[in-house]
């Protein structure tokens, strides 16, 4: 399941709904991304998340499908917020449930790694020096590349 939304999400309720009634789930791996109040040496007052409506949902759905093809998942979830967020607020929730924990962990990491390099979101930080578009990080590209295989990728 994927969702793009402005409002916050309730991690406990989302995870409970994800595995409710499915007694094949032995492990649930989850990642929550939060807004930090610093980036490098810049103080962050807030950030605004822009996205490409339509393509975002398409890419997230494809990333989720790819994870389900690579690992035997019982359930998966991606929720990403857009709009203005302040430090401490939740940005993204990804979760993968499987019979076994390694599949859950690997799929969860894959989901967030691919999301970070393939899903069309952009962060605009409000700092003391004005508003700055965040640069893509080489480490995110590297994190994604570890999942590449000779087979056809899910995106780009």
């Amino acid at each position: 399941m994927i969702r793009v939304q402005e409002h916050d999400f309730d991690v406990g309720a989302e995870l409970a709904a994800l595995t409710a009634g499915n007694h094949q789930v032995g492990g649930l791996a989850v990642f929550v991304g939060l807004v930090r109040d610093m980036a490098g040496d810049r103080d962050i007052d807030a950030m605004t998340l822009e996205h490409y409506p339509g393509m975002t949902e398409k890419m997230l759905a494809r990333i989720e499908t790819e994870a389900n093809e690579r690992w035997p998942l019982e359930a998966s979830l991606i929720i990403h917020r857009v709009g203005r967020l302040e430090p401490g607020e939740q940005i993204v929730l990804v979760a993968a449930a499987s019979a076994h924990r390694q599949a859950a962990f690997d799929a969860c990491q894959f989901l967030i790694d691919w999301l970070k390099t393939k899903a069309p979101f952009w962060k605009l930080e409000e700092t003391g020096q004005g508003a700055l578009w965040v640069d893509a990080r080489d480490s995110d590209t590297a994190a994604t590349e570890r999942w590449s295989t000779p087979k056809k990728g899910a995106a780009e």
Partner: protein
Amino acid sequence: MKLLYFAWLKTKTGVAEEDVAPPPEVTTVAELLAWLQQRGPGHAEALADLSALKVAVNQEYAQPGDPVRPGDEVALFPPVTGG
């Protein structure tokens, strides 16, 4: 052809969205970008460094040699930074 600009591409071009009709010899992503660089000073600045640019045609990532056609939705944006 509908063009969409995101993040600092939007700031620099000054537009979020525009309808354009490139000449018929513009048939690929690379040719479209070269044509757009001539569209005005804002576009020239936004498109100065093509290595920093991602392009999606009809909501699919595209490479310089990929085709563009009238009626396509073409989006220009920097590398993504969500998550």
